[in-house]
């Protein structure tokens, strides 16, 4: 444990209130952080953690409340003020400019330049190199962001803050994209930083990380501060129930089943990504009736391209995709839907919903040109309304009104609309790609039980997720994808996090 200096509060926020219209995202939140500590902010998705930190960083102005930094009361009206006070923030969604180099990204806004504002990139690159060595954060200054790994991107983000001499680092959900091993490394980095006198505020909703990395933890629920606790003196279970406000069981109830014949067979699949590189590179797998096959892997190892190929959205270069032994390789999405394959896409906003359409219109997206929703090219609004109403009831979509714009629904309800649409097609294979991303615990439970219900109806489910816990909880078998190949398949009962983590980092052995 680093030397926490209790005599000095580095950051103190008092009674912070931040409203978005009628929504109170932060409701009188207090936060005290001491110099040299790792202070975790724990809360569900949407609890208001990011908002609170954006207030501290000057991106949002609070409706009321005070901020003290190193003892001085500060009006943080823009990020420049926060930066000058030594605050650096690594945002949940990286704030990096893909076509720019590492150096350009780091120096932006605080450039080294000569007369007439002419950039001195050479010198800047050297400075970047120097800091990266000082803190053991390896990066290649001349590479473009779009060409480097997520892990390195994260180091760039941290360097951005250190380059500005930050001694208070805010890290917003930094581990979401890392493997268990990378997470361990990352925790070492954080520890290292505190030894060098930095203070870290770590936002997360993962309990284990808090136990491993943090000294103190402030729990936020629905915009309110619940408590601040010393991490050593509490348990994961206690933290969890403070976060959710009721006791939660992480265990998904699931009867053992004997899987049937294969519904989906993928053979030696090769698919290229947008940059024309082989994202899926000779991948084979099988999903059988009555099982959930979990596909684990670090982001960017071909999951996205695989799912797009399976759903007909991306061209397959070679290899084959078979559903019920029928070849559906390179068929269009319509054909694939008609072969009873339905998908919960990874990006709700982009692929899943037409957010400017009403809920009703979204529900018939795949069937609008069929009876009873239309005949001879004319829509039948009564039939659409009746059907949508039924699904809204069954799936408890709120608000229970099919005529509202889908974009106005909460994330969880948007996901319910998609699940309602896909599941009501009665698919033989359901592909769920990151189905719980950004949802709160209630919605996550709902999604999980829907997937298990499909499996229990003797359907096949392919679950693609970056959350290893989710994969381990739900799957019957787990396949690990690395650089576009399956590097191992294990039965869920035999799986342990360590071996899976090794495989996700490419350390597994080849086996079919």
């Amino acid at each position: 444990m680093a030397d926490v200096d209790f005599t000095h509060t580095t950051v103190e926020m008092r009674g912070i209130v931040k409203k978005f219209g009628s929504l109170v995202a932060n409701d009188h939140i207090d936060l005290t952080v001491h110099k040299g500590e790792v202070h975790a902010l724990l809360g569900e998705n949407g609890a208001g953690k990011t908002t609170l930190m954006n207030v501290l960083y000057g991106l949002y102005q609070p409706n009321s409340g005070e901020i003290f930094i190193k003892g001085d009361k500060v009006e943080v009206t823009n990020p420049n003020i926060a930066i000058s006070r030594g605050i650096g923030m690594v945002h949940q969604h990286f704030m990096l400019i893909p076509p720019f180099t590492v150096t350009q990204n780091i120096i932006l806004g605080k450039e080294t330049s000569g007369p007439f504002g002419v950039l001195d990139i050479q010198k800047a690159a050297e400075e970047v190199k120097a800091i990266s060595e000082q803190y053991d954060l390896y990066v290649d200054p001349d590479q473009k962001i779009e060409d480097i790994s997520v892990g390195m991107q994260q180091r760039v983000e941290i360097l951005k803050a250190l380059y500005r001499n930050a001694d208070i680092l805010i890290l917003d959900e930094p581990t979401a994209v890392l493997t268990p091993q990378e997470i361990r490394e990352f925790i070492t980095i954080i520890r290292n930083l505190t030894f060098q006198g930095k203070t870290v505020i770590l936002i997360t909703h993962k309990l284990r990380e808090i136990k491993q990395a943090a000294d103190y933890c402030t729990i936020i629920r629905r915009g309110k501060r619940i408590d601040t606790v010393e991490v050593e003196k509490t348990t994961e279970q206690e933290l969890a129930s403070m976060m959710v406000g009721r006791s939660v069981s992480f265990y998904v109830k699931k009867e053992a089943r004997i899987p049937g014949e294969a519904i989906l067979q993928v053979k030696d699949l090769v698919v290229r990504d947008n940059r024309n590189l082989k994202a899926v590179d000779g991948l084979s797998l099988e999903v059988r009736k009555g099982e959930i096959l979990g596909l684990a892997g670090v982001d960017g190892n071909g999951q996205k391209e695989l799912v797009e190929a399976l759903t007909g959205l991306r061209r397959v270069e070679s290899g084959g995709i078979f559903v019920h032994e029928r070849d559906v390789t390179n068929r269009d999405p319509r054909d694939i839907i008609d072969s009873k394959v339905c998908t919960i896409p990874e990006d709700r906003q982009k692929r899943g919903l037409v957010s400017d359409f009403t809920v009703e219109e979204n529900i018939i997206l795949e069937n609008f040109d069929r009876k009873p929703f239309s005949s001879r090219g004319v829509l039948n609004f009564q039939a659409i309304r009746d059907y949508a109403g039924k699904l809204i009831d069954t799936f408890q979509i709120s608000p229970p009104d099919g005529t509202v714009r889908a974009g106005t629904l909460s994330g969880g309800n948007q996901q319910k609309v998609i699940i309602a649409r896909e599941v009501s097609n009665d698919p033989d294979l359901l592909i769920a790609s990151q189905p719980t991303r950004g949802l709160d615990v209630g919605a996550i439970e709902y999604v999980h039980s829907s997937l298990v219900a499909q499996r229990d109806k003797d359907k096949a489910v392919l679950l693609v997720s970056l959350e290893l816990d989710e994969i381990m909880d739900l799957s019957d078998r787990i396949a690990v994808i690395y650089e576009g190949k399956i590097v191992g398949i294990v039965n869920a009962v035999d799986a342990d996090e360590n071996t899976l983590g090794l495989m996700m980092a490419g350390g597994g052995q080849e086996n079919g």
Partner: protein
Amino acid sequence: MAMLNSLGFILGTTLMYATPLLFTSLGGVMSENSGVVNIGLEGMMTFGAFAAATVGYFSGNPWLGFLAGGLASGFLGFLHALACVTFAANQVVSGIAINFLGPGLALFLSRKFFDGATMTYNLPIEMKMPKYFNNMLPEGTFVRQVLNQDISVFMAFTLVLLIWFLLYRTKLGLRIRAVGEHPKAADTLGVNVSRIRYLCVILSGVFAGFGGASMSLAVASNFFQTLISGQGFIALAAMIFGKWKPHGAMVACLIFGCAQAMTIFIGGTGLRVPQEFLSMAPYILTLVILMGFVGRAVAPASDGIPYIKDES
């Protein structure tokens, strides 16, 4: 010899016709690299051409006219920035408005100042943009044929260099491109997104105004209703064609200029090709080139998306 003569004529004419497009196209480069789509270039160019010809006529000084063209269009650029940056307008719609306002103002004022006519009075040669290098180049040579140009031609090509340097070699340029790619990232580093966008959009108006001015003060010798007719749009196309880069835009403008020169040249040779087909050629050529070589051009990632600091 005749060959060389023809070539000289074609190259010279190419440069002449490329210039107004190039200025305007560079305006587009500025604006869109900072993330603001500027479909109003046409209107800005028209207004600039008018203002330049008018001030040039009344002051007798082409430089004042040229400057006035830039300032007048800079004002339209300011309006566009006001809409797009401060009010997060739909940038295309705002640009369309500029395309009504620019020519509307130009013709309205023209009627006011020139006895109800939609054209300004002809400028005598000494009130047009000068040709400084005229006397330095030996009479009757190829070099003279090519480089015997209005000063605005040289200014346009110098501007390409300057903007290239600005965008890719300076601090401000890094910030401009950052704002066009990912304004939020720039904002979190304390870069003032609004200020940069204002600057770029106003400059884009100024350059479009220069484009118009080089049309009315150099290529032609007055402003009239159909003087610009579509060149702003072609400059826009050239910018896209040039992949939003100053040097790319230059190449595209040269292609358009060359096509125009060829039209005139072939028209003069008495070849029996219908004039209309010659005039059509550059546009067909553009489409073919876009189909074949350029493919999907990539705009700055946040081009056209208003940046709204999510505050409420």
